[in-house]
């Protein structure tokens, strides 16, 4: 297993959010984390990458490293990359600078080649490489956020709501891109609101509710499971 989480408890200050999460991601897998607002999906990613959330107990093993004790920066060095909700680009810097900053922990000798590879993958970014990130469209910003993370040559890419605020066509492009990355061997852990679309592309999924895993299974099983809908919208399973 690339990522192996056992009985993870995490939260913010006095607030407990995750109450015993166990989850695995294998190499080359696309795993989705679904669930209603406030279920703890983003907190799970933030606990793995130590951004804002505090890990209380449990274990996070990543590629032979103990992430509970690792800093955010160390996690990036191990190849565990987090594309946070809202993208968090350096909005006043150019597209090119954003990408190059993504390679901060990577080998600088291959920097130019790596940037060129990203432009090849995202031709629209190549056209805008000297524009500031703020001036990009929402879809391009999301591509840039992913491209910036790819610069660190991730083994696992964690994406928090990559489809938020994007038009359906762009969302489809993003998911095609994730499928490409998966084929190239990158493991993906994707947090999404858009459950049905995500299940179309994922291998497996976990459905969170109230900080715990309510359902887990293959994407095909879950897509047909009426309990998923009951978790989102309440009520009994009909």
């Amino acid at each position, binding site marked *: 297993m690339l990522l192996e989480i056992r009985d993870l408890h995490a939260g913010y200050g006095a607030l*407990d959010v995750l109450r015993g999460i166990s989850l695995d991601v294998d190499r080359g897998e696309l795993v989705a984390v679904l669930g*209603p607002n406030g279920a703890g999906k983003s907190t799970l990613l933030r606990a793995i990458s130590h951004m804002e959330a505090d890990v209380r107990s449990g274990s996070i093993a990543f590629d032979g490293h103990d992430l509970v004790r690792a800093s955010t920066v160390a996690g990036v060095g191990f190849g565990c990359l987090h594309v946070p909700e809202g993208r968090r680009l350096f909005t006043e810097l150019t597209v090119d600078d954003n990408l190059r900053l993504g390679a901060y922990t990577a080998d600088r000798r291959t920097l130019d080649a790596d940037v060129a590879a990203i432009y090849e993958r995202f031709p629209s970014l190549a056209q805008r490489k000297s524009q500031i990130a703020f001036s990009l469209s929402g879809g391009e910003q999301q591509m840039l956020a992913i491209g910036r993370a790819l610069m660190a040559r991730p083994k696992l890419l964690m994406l928090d709501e990559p489809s938020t605020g994007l038009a359906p066509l762009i969302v*489809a492009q993003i998911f095609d891109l994730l499928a490409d990355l998966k084929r190239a061997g990158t493991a993906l852990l994707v947090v999404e*609101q858009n459950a*049905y679309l995500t*299940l*179309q592309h*994922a*291998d497996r999924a976990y459905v969170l509710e109230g900080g715990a895993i309510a359902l887990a299974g293959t994407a095909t099983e879950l897509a047909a499971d009426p309990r998923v809908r009951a978790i989102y919208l*309440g009520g009994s399973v009909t």
Partner: protein
Amino acid sequence: MIARIGADTRALPVLALVVIVFGIVAAGNPTFAQAGTYAAIYAIAAIGLSLLMGNVNQISIGQAGFFGLGAYAVAYGTTSWTLPPALSWPLAAALGVAAAALAGLAVGFIALRFRGHYLAVATLAFGLICVGVFHESALLGGAIGIQNVPYPQFGPLTISGYPAYWFAWAFAALAALVSINLLRGRSGRAFETIRNDELAAEVLGIPTRRYKIVAFAYAGALAGLAGAIYAAFLGIVVPDAVSVQLSITLLLMVVLGGSGSVSGALIGAALLAIIDISGNQFENSREVAYGVLVIAVVIAAPGGIFGLIRARINAPAAPRRSSSPPAEPHAAIAPPANGRAPLAVSGVTKRFGGLVAVNDVSFTLERGTLTSLIGPNGAGKTTLFNAIGGIGDLTAGSVTIAGVDVTGQQPHRIAALGVGRTFQNARLFGEMTVLENVLAGTFRRRDPERIAVERAYATLERLELAPLANTLARDLAFGDRRRVELARAIAADPWLLLVDEPAAGLNASERDRLQRDLLALRDDGMTLLLIEHDMRLVMAISERVMVLKFGTLIADGPPENVRNDPGVVAAYLGTAVPGTATA
């Protein structure tokens, strides 16, 4: 009384004793008496600045401007008017204080538009403008200022030298007493809530803008009074004496002593006056000493010197319930008398730049019902709540509460109509106890203190929070924080309650409690509008559910209908896009 102010009040008699003993000792020592007089003069100005910085979170690097207004009023009045000496100083001083208070009012208005560094620069500019005017005004003597300002004369007593010590301290004591009185009771609680969280204070009906302006005027008046005494004591006023240097010295006193406390201001002023006089022969080392002191205090005692002492002073007992409770502390909720709908939202639109957060939303709430507003992340739910509560301007549309058009009103005015609100992240006043938080919630009722205390206790009992009454809010467990916030919001018996994600972060038993509490409020006749993500809760308690998606209402009806609405299912679970690759 708020624990922080309680400690402040208890320290004052000790400080008064120090002033008296020092005064007796200084009788034969002109240097001591002079240092003590300066301490009193500085203290008067520092008390005002301390209140401004510590209680309404406003900074001023322009206090010397107000000080200068008082000083020049006395210098000019006493040298140009032909009045008996017993009249000229009091009259000129009163004029100076009034001018400084008016200038403070004006600066306070302007300050509402600035925050943080910008406010610091704006007040600095005010100070510089004052010095510039003093410097250029021929009437005020230009660069050489006004000399030979007479000492105040009351009958046989001339206020100069040693008597000035007692004269100045009498005013300082008066300033301290008036200030401590402002910081107690209802107004003190309002100041304390603004210190803790302005927005939460505003939705309890506390007019935070007014308090800020008043604090600026008050700080200005005290600085003017200090200037008036200074001019009479020194006998000469020059522009350089009321320059930015003085503003910074006053700021240092407040930071060193501990902002937001009267005792801290007194301690800071005394400390710097002593350093000033004793360091007179080491003119250039003085600034170095100031610098070292500030660095030491900021590192070792961020709350200032009084912040260190405060912890050792026993907090006064919390207000008790009277043994014979006043009749009906918890009256039934009186709905708006005119029989109009508690809330009518019509065509409300809110744009942030190009983003339409709320798009043409209209609905009306029936009295005594519980309605939930749901929708995916970023749907605009909290933005709509803010629009109803007067936080931020609407782009279009109107909000009517019980028949009163409140569009564009400030939050405290909307609260005053009988509207309560809680926040997504339970914005409690961390430095206040649970009881004080709930007491602050009664602000808009203007009850006498005894009734307010009774009402607060009754509210705590109602939500079974009485055992936590004297716990500081910041020490509460998460679930209790939520319940205390609810108690604070209902303490004034609102008839419309807006509740933002009350179940977030609660465990199962806390959620059951919340469900019971909300239903009990509804059964009392309260109209509730709830934002909530916990669908089990929403579906279990709501009579009506409205669904917001990208700022637009896409469904509105009984829970069962909304749950099965295809548009709602798609909003929550998304839709598979036909034709794209499957895994």
